[in-house]
């Protein structure tokens, strides 16, 4: 299995999903060999093998770069391209990279990018300046790993590891499953990075089976990447759910007499933060007994702050910046309603986190998670009137809110990785017996 990150070293949902899939497969008696660009040594690797590409040495035979290069060039038209990929910076990195200090550092690094011929690569495993470069190097190392190990199926997660998966398939002749957690359209809207699109598309074309995290994503693969729908299976994400005891009482909202409505996530175009702001203004226009919180950071944040001030609602609209683990729980504990107005969300795990904390959720129709959460308010991301209505109803009518919170929690309990990976296992079995 080729991934890009593995907990605890994660920047988004991909790593968490990979851990869930691995654990679920192990429970279903599937052996897992998980490859990451860089292992840090503190990962929880019970019953599995975690291979660090950084620690893999290329042998003479594979180091004939010409053949590798030829193959990659043939399969991926954009092989070797390098680009600085903004959507791949997480919130903290984004803040960091936009400081002058970071610009200086980047310049320094750019000046030292000339590297000699290697037998080994040192991966950052992050989403930085050299991302594209690392993707290609990762695929070169993958060929060595495919040589050195025994396995029946190759499973690659998202475009970052698609070239690695394709390379491993070429070396081993084993079937390839391409797992799509997000597409370039989800990340960048209509302004897609053509190189990434090409990698996604050829990765899927070269795969024997594709797993999409939702019907929503499947439709994008069919419509935007011209992939045969029969080649795509939908397996929704699971969620780690243990009925943890409720937050202690001091954490719930005693500070404000008003209901708290929360947006929690990156403040970027595809998450639809501006629709949340506009809906907030609509609600506050009618009733001041609400407070809205935008928790997160991102390239749209300053625009959101300006808009909130312009709407003259900043006395009832708060910004927390990026929140870490326990702070997220605290935020949920304070919230009456959680809103995810995503413009394009392949799955969307955070509403489930909210449900876990007994917070009723409003999600956009343009999300994968709406396929599994029947008991949630659903609106089109652009329909701020409907969103304002839903916020008002969930916050004001307690029986409704309780009903949603209770029922959606039940739905979530069925979304265990052990069940979801059973589906993945049968996909493997089908491929192997073919």
């Amino acid at each position, binding site marked *: 299995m080729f991934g890009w990150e593995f907990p605890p070293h994660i920047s988004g949902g991909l790593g968490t999903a990979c851990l869930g899939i691995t654990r679920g497969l192990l429970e279903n008696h599937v052996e897992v060999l998980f490859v990451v660009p860089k292992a840090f040594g503190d990962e929880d690797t019970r019953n599995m093998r975690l291979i660090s590409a950084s620690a893999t040495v290329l042998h003479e035979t594979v180091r004939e770069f010409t053949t590798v290069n030829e193959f990659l060039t043939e399969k991926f038209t954009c092989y070797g391209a390098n680009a600085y990929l903004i959507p791949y910076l997480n919130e903290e990195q984004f803040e960091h990279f936009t400081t002058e200090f970071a610009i200086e550092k980047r310049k320094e690094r750019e000046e030292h990018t000339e590297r000699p011929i290697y037998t080994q690569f040192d991966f950052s495993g992050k989403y930085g300046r050299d991302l594209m470069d690392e993707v290609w190097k990762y695929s070169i190392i993958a060929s060595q790993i495919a040589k050195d190990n025994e396995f029946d199926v190759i499973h690659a997660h998202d475009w970052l590891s698609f070239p690695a998966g394709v390379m491993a398939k070429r070396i081993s002749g084993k079937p390839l499953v391409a797992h799509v957690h997000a597409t370039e359209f989800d990340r960048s809207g209509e302004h897609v990075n053509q190189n990434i699109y090409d990698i996604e598309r050829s990765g899927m074309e070269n795969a024997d089976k594709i797993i999409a995290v939702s019907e929503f994503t499947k439709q994008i693969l069919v419509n935007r990447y011209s992939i045969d729908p029969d080649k795509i299976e939908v397996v929704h994400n699971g969620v780690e759910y243990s009925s943890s005891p409720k937050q202690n009482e001091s954490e719930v909202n005693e500070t404000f007499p008003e209901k708290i409505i929360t947006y929690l996530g990156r403040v970027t175009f595809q998450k639809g933060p501006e629709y949340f702001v506009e809906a907030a203004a609509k609600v506050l226009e009618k009733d001041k007994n609400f407070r809205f919180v935008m928790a997160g950071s991102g390239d749209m944040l300053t625009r959101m702050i300006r808009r909130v001030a*312009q709407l003259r609602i900043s006395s009832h609209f708060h910004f927390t910046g990026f929140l870490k683990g326990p702070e997220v729980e605290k935020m949920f504990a304070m919230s009456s309603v959680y809103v995810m107005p995503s413009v394009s969300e392949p799955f969307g795990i955070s509403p489930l986190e909210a449900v876990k904390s007994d917070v009723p959720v409003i999600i956009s129709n343009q999300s994968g998670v709406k396929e599994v959460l029947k008991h949630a308010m659903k609106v089109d991301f652009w329909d701020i009137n409907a969103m304002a209505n839903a916020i008002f109803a969930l916050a004001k009518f307690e029986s409704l809110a309780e009903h949603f919170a209770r029922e959606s929690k039940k739905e979530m309990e069925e979304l265990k990785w052990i069940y979801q990976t059973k589906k993945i296992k049968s996909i493997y079995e089908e491929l192997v017996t073919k």
Partner: protein
Amino acid sequence: MKNICFYFQVHQPFRLRNYHFFDIGKRHDYFDPIKNEEILRKVAKNCYFPTNALMLDLIKKHGDQFKISYSISGTALDQFEMYLPELIDSFRALADTGCVEFLAETYSHSLSALRSKDEFISQISAHSARIEQLFGQKPKIFRNTELIYSDYIGEVVASLGFRGMLTEGADRILNWKSPNYVYYHPNNPKLRLLLKNYKLSDDVAFRFSDKNWTEWPLTCEKYVGWLNALDGNEETINLFMDYETFGEHQWPDTGIFEFMRALPEQVLATGNYRFVTPSENIKMLNPVAPLSMESPVSWADQERDLSAWLGNDLQDDAFDNLYKLSSKIKSCCDEELERDWLYLQTSDHFYYMCTKYFADGDIHKYFSPFNNPYDAFINYMNVLTDFTLRVNKAIEKKNAEFRAVTNRNLVTENEKIVVPKLHIMGSMK
């Protein structure tokens, strides 16, 4: 014979601590004692102490021929008292010479003049009382925050009995008029206006150490030469500047202290000038004309208007939310709330939210403890949210107490009332 009128602004704001959304309702200590003390000590060491010593030397040396004036904000005085009481003594020593005039301003160096007349007046009287208590003189001249002035503000100030007011004298504001005369308020001729000679003031305050300036280095000879070159009929040269010009904005190695030490002697040696305080200036000179300023002006940035503090959405929304509370504060009768209310009004908080990046943005950045105006805004709004919750709670408590008392009264009255019984049924028979 021309008058030279020196005026120095001394101000320190109570800077806010980093105050997160999660702090709302949990903690009410908004100001950063460590940062504020650190900055005060630094500025005192670089500027206040050495410059006070220099001014005292100059006054001693020239007898009553050298005079200056200060306005020290109430927030600065509070910080002196909290962190460096010796500073108060140092200014008192200057006051005791009789050659130093202390001006009135709003207590917290606020923008209250633009929003709340009541608040404006109450802050002025609090400040005047403080100055009188510390320095033994009742201020007669008013200097509003950052020289912000308009006809309306002048009118309020005149009604309080002040004889004069200081403001900016940039070309754009004065049109053809020269700042080197005394003017008066169009409706209140008793209120005299002293205008900053912005060129000669800024030559010292801003350009002194600028090596790209064609006049660099500025010597006393050159400066006196410029004074001599002024129109012979003009009557006063008002040199208004931030006190931190000495030692803080212009570092000691620029020669600013040597310049100031030598200047009075060279000026006096010409026999053409005398140093005066603002009060003496308006007593001595007849005003030449009324001067009207319909919209507010200030000495800040290139625009010389309010755009350093107000005008963008962040500033305006924060400002509106702040002054929405002004009527509520008075009815709370809570000392802690009143103190925080004062400190939250300090204009610097709004200055940090300024988004005019080009040219003036650098200066804003230099003075701001925040990375950017957005952080400044969020932090301020978090604090203001907590403050608002406290004010509302205090009012609720007062109302509850009031209701309890009136209910008790009602009950006792009810007991006395004998309700007449109606025999409706009987009458129907």
